[in-house]
């Protein structure tokens, strides 16, 4: 078995003269929910289209459970269930007929399985209506049901919250987490709005202009050891502040910035006591110290700056 559910290796996409994806490399761990964030036009959908083989990869490769989507398409795609952009279905068929249509395209999907996924996304009541009459939220659920049909180990959801009202978004959030746990799948979920998916992700990758900017852990990962390595954003009100900044740099090699009266820096949790001790020992007055309530959203904007298209 491969080490990662999915691995991108220097994946590039060039269309005409323009390089749209400039060498993406990252891994999706087994069983994690991975958020794929970037402004519109950053290359999220293009990357996802390459992951599922809808677009050719110009150079580099994408491995799904160890199989290249380029050279071992069938073996690789078997592991994947996906919605790419909008969950489009045949509007003249019922939800059930749509699911059966896709079920017939995989070898191991029985009628019982179709019932199972319908129940999983809570679409039992509407399943015999024509999809043309579905609301966007219902189509989104049907799309997820379709993606889950053939027991995928990776679920790819492109902008699943797009066009949904807040209630619909909350609903999706809830059952994507549930599905990830119940079905034991890795989930890749893209969005241009971080706040919408932040809560359901384990890690978040941020992409801008076809380049991966950073990958951040959101929730504590499963292992205890990793929990302690989690970085905290510390805010300390101290005086004299310039001396404090120098001290942090000298003794702990931490680059702190000044925000008005506050000292702001990032560090691991286990270092916090010794940092404060250093400051106190050097006669720096500490008025307050705490973990910044800075959300990932702010960080996201810090990282990508203004939404640039081009």
């Amino acid at each position: 078995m491969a080490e990662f559910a999915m691995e991108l290796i220097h994946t590039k996409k060039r269309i005409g003269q323009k390089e749209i994806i400039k060498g993406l490399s990252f891994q999706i761990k087994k069983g994690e929910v991975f958020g794929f964030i970037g402004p519109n036009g950053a290359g999220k959908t293009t990357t996802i289209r390459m992951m599922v083989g809808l677009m050719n990869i110009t150079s580099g490769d994408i491995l799904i459970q160890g199989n290249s989507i380029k050279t071992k398409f069938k073996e690789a795609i078997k592991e994947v269930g996906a919605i790419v952009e909008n969950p489009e279905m045949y509007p003249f068929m019922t939800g059930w007929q749509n699911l059966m249509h896709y079920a017939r395209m995989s070898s191991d999907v029985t009628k019982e399985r179709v019932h199972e996924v319908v129940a999983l996304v809570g679409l039992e009541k509407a399943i015999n209506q024509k999809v043309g009459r579905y609301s966007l939220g219902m189509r989104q659920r049907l799309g997820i049901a379709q993606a889950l049909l053939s027991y995928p180990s990776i679920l790819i959801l492109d902008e699943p919250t797009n066009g949904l009202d807040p209630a619909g978004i909350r609903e999706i959030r809830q059952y994507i987490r549930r599905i990830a746990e119940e079905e034991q799948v890795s989930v890749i979920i893209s969005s241009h709005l971080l706040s919408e998916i932040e809560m359901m992700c384990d890690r978040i990758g941020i992409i801008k202009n076809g380049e991966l900017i950073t990958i951040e852990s959101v929730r504590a990962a499963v292992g205890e050891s990793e929990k302690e390595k989690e970085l905290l954003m510390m805010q300390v009100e101290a005086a004299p502040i310039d001396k404090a900044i120098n001290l942090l740099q000298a003794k702990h090699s931490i680059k702190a910035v000044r925000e008005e009266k506050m000292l702001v820096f990032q560090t691991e949790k286990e270092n916090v006591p010794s940092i404060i001790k250093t400051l106190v020992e050097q006669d720096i007055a500490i008025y307050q110290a705490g973990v910044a309530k800075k959300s990932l959203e702010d960080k996201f904007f810090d990282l990508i700056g203004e939404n640039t298209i081009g």
Partner: protein
Amino acid sequence: MGKFFKLIYNEEIKLYIRKSTWIMYIVLAGLIIGIAALTNTFDQGKNYTSDNWRTELQKENKALQKDTEDYIKETNPDEDDFYVNMNQEEMDRNNYYLEHDIQPQNYGAWQFTSDNAGLLSVVSLLTIIVAAGTVANEFRWGTIKLLLIRPISRSVILLSKYVSVLLFALITLVFVLALSLISGGMFFGFEDSLQTVVTSHGELQQTSLVTETLSSYGYQIVNLIMMTTFAFMISVLFRNSALAIGIAIFLMLSGNSIVGFFQDRAWAKYILFANTDLQQYTTGSPLMEGMTMQFSITVLIVYYIIFIALSWIMFTKRDVAGF
């Protein structure tokens, strides 16, 4: 069920579940029944019985002879006049019956079905519409993305779509045949014997009506397959069904004019439409000099391979993006 069979089944479901497909069949049924009713009203129908058919035929021939003479006197036509030829052919046929002592058949269901071979151009039209939509619609609906992320290669998906289109043509063809026989049987009754006389290689010959009907349908199928494959290719290339329908139907209707327009060029015989009518070789008058059945079949195969290869390359290699 085999995997490929399931794909075909999927395609046929998507086709026959839509009302527009049923409207096609309703129109087709209306046409057939309408033609039968009209023929029944306007054609008084000759009534040959075992006693009178010889005198009937002789009467007919006299009338035709007189008709032709009057026509020649009035209009002074060319040597190769269509009307004169038609009358002459009719007389020849009657004489053949008399000489060989065969009783001609009254108009019946098989004759009606045979006459309806022209309806195959309507079947071609409908099949073109279906062929033009089968790939383009998946793009229009956006469902192509879900179709191509299954553990099935794009080539197999394309093949299943192509075969499904041909299957639609076959079903529609059988529908036309069956409904023609049924409505023909209801309006005119069935023939007592299935012997008929046809022109083959410039000579009159006796043959079975069933063979004759099936072969005239068969020759039209060549055109149907070529135009359908063409529409299929356009639909794959441009991912637009309206464009594919437009181009294919325009070419189908203007094919003969195109050939006529370029007739004196040396390369005219390589035009697709000069070769789609293989019946020209059995009746014995090829469109252009130097054309043979073998030549036409070769040209058709070359076009066919080009259509299929272009469709296949474009479908399997191109990115699916931006919808």
